[in-house]
């Protein structure tokens, strides 16, 4: 919210990230988005009598990686608790989560805003298992019928709880984008809000500016499936609360669902009593000790994180801050950039080509994976650097590379884009350019030397941009200045 309005907002987020471990959190089932319903289940995921959970240590390591990345305090001893509630897609009747001894607490994450850098504190990070999926809304589900897919049951989640330190919907969205970047750098979560492997619930509260205390009333907003939805839902909710205050009405604590179609928040009307989850220590899982040697092993596996990599890019490749930000936005693009630089050596050339040609030609943000391999792109730049094709030709090759599997050399051959620098052949073309434009020749010879570029353009046109511009220039000068 901007400073002009008389209200102040605080937002806290609960972020759920699905960990991309090979198997689920407490059983050996493999999981995959979009698998045949209920095909990825076992007695444990289905809550069959007698099945027992066994902790997946890889998931713990993933959670610890995030904790290290946000400089959180990692528990030496962590334990699981049962969170009890009834829901059809919760087959055990409880979720195995963490309550009073989360795996990590007191972390922080820097987010970059237009106004500068803001540090958001992270209250806790804990592990828990995901529930299944109830399906009622699909067209193929009959009226008065609900179907349940238990595939997702038991998929490891980390819950990241922030302190209520975000002041605008935009900051909330920025925080999520930063977390997503981190999760992807750590390679522990695919972090796609659209498919639900990154999810977010937000708590929001508004008060008049300068109020001494917060009213203690907040609403929780759920069901936001994109960064844009988070921003819009929170903006809507912020405005709704302000309007209530303006009309002297009370804000009620509530849980709300964001309705994407109608672009409004709607009350879930959950009874207060439903919130007693009766947490108690999970008797099937002994407390977990995280000792120094395990922690050291995980520390050794930590990749270079986004901020460090950006700083290094600035230092090592002399990039501007903006370029470094762009190239380190995703780990894929950063890897791509570095690979190409290593092969080509010329950072400026690579910089220009990645930024202005590759990213522009695919008309995508840096969030998307690069559509061609670093090797192929480097090969193309190699042709450019060695002046074996013109920049114009290289752009044609690049467009072709985006849609075909062909090698760079093959495209150059097929499209007959090989550089034309043979003096005899160029001479014929230059002659034609001169013959075709008698007026221009007249003007050139009467002193309009800048028309040289026009003639180079004509040669390019006649050769369909294949001509070596340096060679063409030389021959043009010879012939135009001959008389």
């Amino acid at each position, binding site marked *: 919210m901007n400073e002009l309005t008389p209200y102040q907002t605080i937002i806290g987020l609960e972020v759920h990230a699905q960990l991309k471990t090979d198997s689920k959190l407490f059983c050996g089932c493999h999981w995959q988005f979009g698998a045949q319903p209920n095909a990825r289940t076992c*007695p444990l995921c*289905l*809550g*069959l*009598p*007698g*099945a*027992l*959970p*066994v*902790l997946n240590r890889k998931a713990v390591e993933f959670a610890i990686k995030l904790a290290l990345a946000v400089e959180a305090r990692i528990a030496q001893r962590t334990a699981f608790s*049962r969170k*009890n509630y*009834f829901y*059809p897609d919760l*087959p*055990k*009747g*409880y979720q195995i989560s963490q309550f009073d001894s989360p795996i990590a607490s007191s972390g922080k994450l820097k987010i970059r805003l237009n106004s500068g850098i803001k540090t958001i504190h992270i209250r806790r990070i804990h592990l828990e298992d995901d529930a299944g999926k109830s399906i009622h809304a699909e067209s193929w589900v009959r009226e008065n019928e*609900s179907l*349940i897919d238990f595939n997702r049951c038991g998929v490891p989640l980390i819950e990241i709880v922030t302190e209520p330190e975000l002041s605008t919907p935009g900051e909330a969205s920025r925080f999520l984008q930063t977390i997503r970047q981190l999760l992807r750098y750590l390679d522990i979560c695919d972090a796609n809000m659209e498919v639900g492997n990154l999810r977010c619930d937000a708590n929001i509260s508004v008060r008049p500016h300068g109020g001494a205390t917060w009213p203690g009333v907040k609403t929780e907003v759920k069901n936001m499936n994109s960064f844009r939805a988070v921003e819009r839902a929170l903006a809507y909710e912020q405005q709704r609360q302000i309007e209530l205050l303006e009309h002297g009405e009370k804000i009620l604590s509530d849980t709300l669902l964001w309705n994407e179609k109608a672009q409004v928040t709607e009350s879930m009307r959950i009874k207060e009593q439903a919130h*007693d989850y*009766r*947490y*108690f220590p999970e*008797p*099937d*899982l*002994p407390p977990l000790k995280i000792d120094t040697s395990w922690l050291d092993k995980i520390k050794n596996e930590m990749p270079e994180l986004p901020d460090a990599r950006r700083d290094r890019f600035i230092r090592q490749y002399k990039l501007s801050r903006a370029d470094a930000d762009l190239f380190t936005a995703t780990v894929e693009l950063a890897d791509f950039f570095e690979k190409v630089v290593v092969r080509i050596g010329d950072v400026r050339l690579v910089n220009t080509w990645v930024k202005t040609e590759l990213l522009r030609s695919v008309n995508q943000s840096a969030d998307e994976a690069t559509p061609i391999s670093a090797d192929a792109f480097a090969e193309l730049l190699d042709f450019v650097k060695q002046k074996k094709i013109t920049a114009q030709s290289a752009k044609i090759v690049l467009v072709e590379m985006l849609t075909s599997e062909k090698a760079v050399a093959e495209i150059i051959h097929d499209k007959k884009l090989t550089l034309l620098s043979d003096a005899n052949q160029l001479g014929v073309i230059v002659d034609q350019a001169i013959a075709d434009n008698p007026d221009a020749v007249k003007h050139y010879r009467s002193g309009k030397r800048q028309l040289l570029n026009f003639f180079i353009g004509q040669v390019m046109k006649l050769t369909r941009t294949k001509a070596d511009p340096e060679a063409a220039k030389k021959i043009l000068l010879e012939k135009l200045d001959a008389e």
Partner: protein
Amino acid sequence: MNFEGLDYLAIRRLIFQRKASCRQLTNHYLSQIDAAKKFNAFISVLKKYALTSAELLDQRLQKSDAGPLAGLVIAVKDNINFRDSLSTCGSKILANYVSPYNATVIEKLLNADAIVIGKTNMDEFGMGSSGENSFFGPVKNPLDPNRAAGGSSAGSAVAVAASLSTAALGSDTGGSIRQPAAFCGVVGLKPTYGRVSRFGLVAFASSLEEIGPITKSVADAAAILEVIAGHDTKDATSARQPVKNYSDIIRARSRKIRIGLPREYFVAEVTPEIKTAILEVVKKLEQQGAEVEWISLPHTEFAIAAYYIIAAAEASSNLARYDGVRYGFRSDGSQDIEQMYLNSRSDGFGEEVKRRILLGTFVLSSGYYENYYRRAQKVRHLIHLDFKAAFQQCDCLIAPTVPTTAFFLGEKIRDPLQMYLSDVFTVPANLAGIPAMSVPCGTDSNGLPIGLQIMADHFNEETLLQTGNAVESIVKQCKLH
């Protein structure tokens, strides 16, 4: 061939010496089961499966290719999953439930060539001390059908006592192996928590329960324990402690043993006949060289209260999965999901189970958790410390298993508190996680069996079995005289 009254070791000799076949043995038990239907010991009898297994095993015996438990025809409590057969837990809510997988103990028994003959009746989900809380009707004590067989492993104890199987598996959450073993005059062993995998045991109170054998002799218990014990990757609470060869250990001459008699277990509530019987055996052990001393377990009186809070709390969560959504009983005619839960659980669970779910839900609720659940956990810790201190002084403890011998069916069923008090001497071992065993110790004036309980420190089943073996010989000799 008459197998009546023989323990597994005796039967094993007959089988390995080819004096009897597994088929004969299995047929014998099947006809015994038929003749003993009035005791209501079995929920399902796996006739075809048992006979086929017996025939295959006989062929293997011909080739001297049989496992260590060949000739063991075992009855299994109906809360232990056996693939493709019913696992009802004595409940209406699982009356038609067929398990798609085997419990780890079942895998181990089958690998050792034991034959599973059937699934035994029990108090619903293990909740009960009389064998009366079953959807399939009450179990009757074979020594007096008007009396209770004890619970909750009622059918398993009856199967062994009435020779309907060579041995049985039970589960013990607060005495459910030892108490019915005492009432029926057989041996019942609850191993250390974590000694035997719980994978495939339908959970009632996860932090308290263990699977264990019910047998005709201490040696049989040793033979079965050494097969079913051991670490299991499928159970995170199972221990990595090495498993000893218990059959050999009990045969070895026991060293000089220090026996503790906990004062709190010889109080006025215990019938004089039980006290006398146990103290007489202890005197004989002393004459054989054991050191005996009275010790104190000062927090014993709080054990029942702590137990019923913790067990109920865990049960309320463990039994939440029986919601009528995926399997088991679902009530018809519900209009919405909430009503379906309500109706299915109201109709599907019996009175005692509902009582404990309500109690457990209550003690975990916010505002009550600290005063009930948390406090019960503190008491549990104190009881644990009581035992730790006791085992500094002595190798094992001897006490009554139950304050009385078998009571009448219907006698306590209307008074839950009286029923709970039947477990007063068995629950402390579950709270502390230590191993404990009930060994027959003669009979009272009504001819009803008395159970002598031995308790030892964590993972010291060795001492438990050695002492049990000594007790068993003394009791046998007394009978002869």
